């Protein structure tokens, strides 16, 4: 029996319109800086603003640091949970999901309380150490996405047997982790990395309350004081996010090899 495809197409079209119409409206509004004509003047102003370049560069740097620390924290943890401590999986999953239920503002107030200049570990006492604290905060915020991505990647390969095969061939832990496991979860790692990047680029609360010159507070500042430029910034932010998603697809598809189970 042939099933009608009209219903799914209506649902898809409605869903697409729900997302696309505000975007088109924002884009159209961002082009109306000059009266009576469409122009990219708002984009020129935004992209030419030294504060845009400085804050975007700062957030990009912190995003990269967050990705490195996140990978170093999550990959060995997820690997050991999968290999040796599967009973701890629910506990670790619960911990990694906490940032989704604890608002960033609660986290940052906790940080300010714990790491203020009169505490035992005064991480807020200098710009450098505050940057470090902000990076750790971002690692926490990105934890649910990074852990899920890596864990899914590890589940798609037979971690235990691959580890044992490498061990029987004389390999030690660093070789197993970097030569056998990591290359086989590359696309999962990239997914986690790009999601982390997208989160860090748009994050406002932590950066604002820790008083760091990040892209999120800049977005808010422009939004509060200008009319057309915030729309241009929103479109740029969307573009950056989409670029990240596109890169996930490109690199994910390009990942070589597959285990027999995943073929």
């Amino acid at each position: 029996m042939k099933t009608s495809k009209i219903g799914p197409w209506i649902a898809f079209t409605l869903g697409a319109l729900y997302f696309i119409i505000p975007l088109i409206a924002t884009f159209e509004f961002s082009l109306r800086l000059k009266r009576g004509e469409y122009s990219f003047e708002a984009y020129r102003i935004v992209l030419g603003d030294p504060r845009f370049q400085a804050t975007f560069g700062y957030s990009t740097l912190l995003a990269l640091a967050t990705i490195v620390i996140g990978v170093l924290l999550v990959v060995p943890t997820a690997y050991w949970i999968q290999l040796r401590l599967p009973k701890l999986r629910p506990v670790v999953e619960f911990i990694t999901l906490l940032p989704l239920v604890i608002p960033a503002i609660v986290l940052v107030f906790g940080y300010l309380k714990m790491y203020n200049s009169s505490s035992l570990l005064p991480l807020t006492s200098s710009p450098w150490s505050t940057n470090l604290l902000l990076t750790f905060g971002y690692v926490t915020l990105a934890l649910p996405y990074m852990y899920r991505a890596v864990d899914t990647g590890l589940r798609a390969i037979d971690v235990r047997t691959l580890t044992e095969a490498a061990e029987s061939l004389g390999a030690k832990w660093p070789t197993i982790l970097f030569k056998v496991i990591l290359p086989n979860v590359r696309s999962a790692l990239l997914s986690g990395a790009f999601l982390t990047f997208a989160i860090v680029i748009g994050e406002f609360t932590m950066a604002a309350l820790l008083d760091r010159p990040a892209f999120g507070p800049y977005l808010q500042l422009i939004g509060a004081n200008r009319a057309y430029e915030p729309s241009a910034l929103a479109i740029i932010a969307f573009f950056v996010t989409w670029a990240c998603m596109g890169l996930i697809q490109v690199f994910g598809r390009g990942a070589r090899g597959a285990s027999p189970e995943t073929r």
Partner: protein
Amino acid sequence: MSFLVIEALRKTFGQHAVVEHFDLAAERGEFVSFLGPSGCGKTTTLRMVAGFETPTAGRIRIDGRDVTGLRPNQRNVGMVFQSYALFPNMTVAQNVAFGLKVAGRSAAEIGPRVDEMLKLIKLPHLAERYPYQLSGGQQQRVALARAIAIKPQILLLDEPLSALDAKIRISLREEIKAVQRTLGITTIYVTHDQEEALSMSDRIVVMNEGKAEQIGTPFEIYNYPRTRFVASFVGTLNLLPGKVIDAAAGRIAIDGREVVSSRGLAGAQPGEIRTVALRPEAVTLNDPRADGNRMEGTIEDVAFLGSVVRIRVRFGESSISLDTFNNPSVQPPERGQAVTVCFAHADLQVLQDAA
């Protein structure tokens, strides 16, 4: 001293003992199979030899060296897994070279060794392929090449053919045996397939509930099973309850009919009930020349299996299955036909277990 010595090996998970009282001495170059049903402890024993499981008690020695406490990467054993376990991110050649690179061998040494291994498994033309581009049989041959490339002291194979189809399985088991014979490598092979074990092994360890039920050559295991489990697990077998009449003379009654076993009834008492084992291929039908035991019965069932016709003959409460070769010019007997089954005294085995 034997090349591989396993002494009083025991492994428990919590309160449950999966392997106990396991002893084995394998000679250099010997091909030993662990044969048994799922959960009998054969894979756990193999994994203890590989170093993936730590024994609860007992010792494992390879070439005189105690390896019980060593990590898998310190034992120099090659392992082939049921699921192939090829590294998906590496080509065939890189997979085979992996162990050699880890051992710090030079590129000048690795290249020729990889070529040699690929020639041995007859896949030199697939060196640059990735595992996902190979069939299951090809992947398992690469896994074998990878395991033996490092020149291990012992080769361990954990049900390597289980995931393959029947035709590939038969050709690959011949290849594995040929490679093993060529290299003269001591090999432990885990399988639940009796045909694999019988056709490939120098000796078989039949395992049941964590213990070695019997260790012997395929000929001994098949023809002289010591326990009911071994008898029933290896090959098709008629198992019948027999009442001992005279142990010294080997006389025993099956369903009231007296038969004789020339293999003796060690330690049996008159009146004791013992299990009697008889292979279907040892029984003939209406053979006037046959010398030995004869029993009158009625044909209950006839199954045409192609080259073999399996006939079941009933005697009161018991029945015996027998195999005859198919003869196109002779019709198989009919159900309900009265027949005489004949078998030699030497073919009737009285097992140690009670029926």
